[in-house]
């Protein structure tokens, strides 16, 4: 009890004693008008301490008036004065209870508004729903004056007040029926444990349930208030959930925009690098062509030397042609178009053998091995496109593996496809970059310095293979190096 409460209690007790002493000294009849003075301490206690205070003060007054009434009854029987005294006892008790009850009701109403404000404050903070629910339960326990408050939200995934939701519990029943439940006694304690469970509703939907337990009475007014409270908390929770979703969406959006910006930045960097590289790649054969053509124009060479220079110039022209083809294919790809292919039924084995043989003759620095396992089925493919794919893969293998090493080309039929592996003994591609080597402009940082390239070859290979309904992937070769595998659908 607070200091002001103690002072009020002392004042009430003092008034009862003084009035009783005054009536006794005056030897008053139970119908004396002075008996109404008892209303003063009774009303005061009722206003200050509620029903209990009003009743206790009324009890004190009744004990004070009682002897006068009893003496009147004993002395004169049930007289009018005795009846007035009895009525006074009833009025005092009734006044104490009524005023106390009204004062308590007003106080509870104020507390409810304050509780709602406290709930809204608790829900306004940007914390996860589970933590919000725990805080909410603590606020409700304190504010509603109950022994325990619990919440079940998010279809039973968030439970506050117990470890888990029992499917046969009262709360589960309320969630299923969407109706409040009141149990007068849980039967678990010496004192009656009242249990009220109300659905938390928002926009016609049940978003959870609020359960409160109290060792003592829960009046009908309080139960009705809890039902209204459930609706308010449900709405506030729904708002909090929407706000949390909005926050999460904003964070995801920010993350995605950041990723896209980073990706665009990298694309920009790769394109800039590509422009420089492409200029260099175009300039190299052009310089060779310019130099050799000037030599041929200005000097006389032996026929054998002329043929050798012409072979070199032809090779550079082919290289220029490949680069230009790659550019054209890339342009189509960036417009979202598939590469232009002319398909025909063909046997892949001679194509593979021809490509290997071509490199075996021209690139004597490496050993080139071809293994064809059994007879290969025929495929529906563009011979030129297939030739470009094979040459691109073999040329890459040769470019990125050391001189003297072996490049193996293996072809086989398996599960309705024709698989062609090209394995080298080079430094290999780091696992995390294997998927990215098929992106346009992308070059593996560690091996970019090993040979010229635009970063377009493998992306063109991929688009050509996919245009045939096939797949291409990069793996680590056994031991070291890289294995590129092309799989094309075989004809039945």
């Amino acid at each position, binding site marked *: 009890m607070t200091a002001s409460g103690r002072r009020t209690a002392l004042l009430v007790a003092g008034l009862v004693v003084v009035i009783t002493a005054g009536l006794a000294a005056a030897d008053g009849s139970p119908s004396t008008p002075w008996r109404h003075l008892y209303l003063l301490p009774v009303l005061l206690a009722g206003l200050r301490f509620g029903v209990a205070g009003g009743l206790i003060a009324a*009890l004190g007054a*009744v*004990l004070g008036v*009682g*002897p*006068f*009434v*009893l*003496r009147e*009854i*004993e002395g004169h*029987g*049930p007289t009018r004065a005795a009846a007035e005294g009895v009525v006074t006892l009833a009025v005092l008790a009734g006044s104490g209870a009524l005023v106390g009850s009204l004062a308590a009701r007003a106080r509870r109403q104020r507390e409810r508004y304050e509780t709602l404000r406290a709930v809204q404050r608790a829900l306004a903070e940007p914390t996860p729903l589970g933590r919000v629910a725990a805080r909410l339960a603590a606020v409700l326990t304190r504010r509603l004056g109950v022994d*325990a408050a*619990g919440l*079940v939200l998010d279809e039973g995934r968030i*439970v506050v*007040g*117990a*470890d*888990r*939701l*029992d499917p*046969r*519990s*009262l*709360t589960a*029943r309320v969630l299923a029926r969407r109706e409040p439940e009141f*149990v*007068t*006694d*849980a*039967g*678990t*304690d*010496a*004192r*009656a*444990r009242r*249990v009220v*469970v109300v659905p938390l509703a928002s926009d016609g939907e049940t978003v959870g349930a609020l*359960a*409160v*337990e109290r060792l*003592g*009475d829960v*009046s009908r007014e309080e139960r009705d208030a809890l039902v209204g409270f459930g609706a308010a908390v449900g709405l506030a929770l729904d708002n909090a959930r929407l706000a949390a979703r909005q926050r999460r969406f904003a964070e995801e959006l920010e993350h995605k925009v950041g990723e896209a910006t980073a990706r665009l930045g990298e694309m920009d960097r790769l394109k800039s690098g590509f422009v420089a590289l492409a200029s260099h790649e175009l300039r190299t054969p052009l310089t060779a062509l310019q130099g050799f053509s000037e030599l041929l124009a200005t000097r006389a060479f032996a026929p054998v030397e002329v043929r050798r220079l012409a072979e070199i110039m032809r090779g550079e022209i082919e290289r220029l042609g490949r680069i230009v083809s790659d550019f054209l294919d890339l342009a189509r790809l960036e417009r979202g178009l598939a590469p232009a292919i002319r398909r025909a039924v063909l046997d892949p084995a001679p194509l593979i053998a021809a490509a290997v043989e071509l490199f075996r003759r021209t690139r004597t620095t490496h050993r080139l091995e071809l293994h064809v396992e059994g007879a290969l089925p025929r495929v529906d493919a563009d011979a030129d496109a297939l030739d470009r794919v094979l040459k691109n893969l073999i040329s890459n293998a040769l470019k990125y593996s050391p001189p003297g090493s072996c490049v193996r080309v293996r072809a086989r039929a398996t599960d309705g496809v024709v698989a062609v592996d090209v394995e080298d003994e080079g430094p290999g591609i780091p696992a995390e970059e294997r998927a990215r080597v098929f992106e346009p402009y992308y070059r593996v940082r560690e091996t970019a310095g090993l040979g010229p390239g635009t970063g377009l070859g493998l992306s063109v290979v991929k688009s050509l293979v996919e245009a045939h309904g096939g797949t291409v992937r990069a793996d680590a070769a056994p031991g070291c190096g890289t294995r590129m595998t092309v799989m094309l659908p075989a004809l039945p």
Partner: protein
Amino acid sequence: MYAIARPWEPRPGGLLSGAPLPLLVALGVLTAGAGALARAELVPLTPARALGAGGAQGALLATAVAWAASRGGPAPWLAATVVLAGAVGAALSPLGALAYLAAPVWVWLERARLPGLGLARAPAGLVVAGAALGALLGAHLFVTASLTLGYSGRVPTLEGLAPWLAYDVGGNVLTTEAFFRGALFDRAQRRWPFPAAAALVTALCLVRYLVDPLLPRSLEVTAGAVFYLTLLSLANCWLYWRSGSIAPGVAAGVVFFVAYRLLHVVP
């Protein structure tokens, strides 16, 4: 929390379910028979009154034991027998009423198997509060009755007070508190709000005292009984509600009735 973590099942039975009906009928026959025999002057008034009161109070304690006992608790007829033994003792001689003390001893020994009475968990503070309440009401009664109503107080002799004290402890207060608070109010407060439960129990408790043949039939005593027993009953309901034990109520009742016995009310 019970509401979330425990399976819920509707409460079985009504307010009066589980009463030992055959035993109550037998005790009712005994009480009515003792009264009839006394009215027919076939047996002297005092033993007939003692047996009648014993039958009624035995019925109260037996019902309380039936409702308050845990599974495997004492048999209700044992409770009735213990109270009846006190009544038989009182019927035989005034000091024979000391046999009533067997009832509180038996209840105390069985307290662990009578969880509804809450004697095993009686909070000392509320027992003291109960005794203080009884003293306040008793003092008020004493002052009111002796100074204003003309009933004289008396200095008790041990022989004069001891039988009444034994009767109040073992027959009157114990059976009243065990039935009206430990059994009936306990069940009522689990169904209805405290004011409703307390009002019902207090009304029935008043009826129990007003039909008691030991209460003198005069207007002022009846009015006084209604006044004080209403306050005592309401206060004891509150004490039981707070403590879950009949011990504070027993303390209040015993102290109050000691004050009552000090008045020269009962001839």
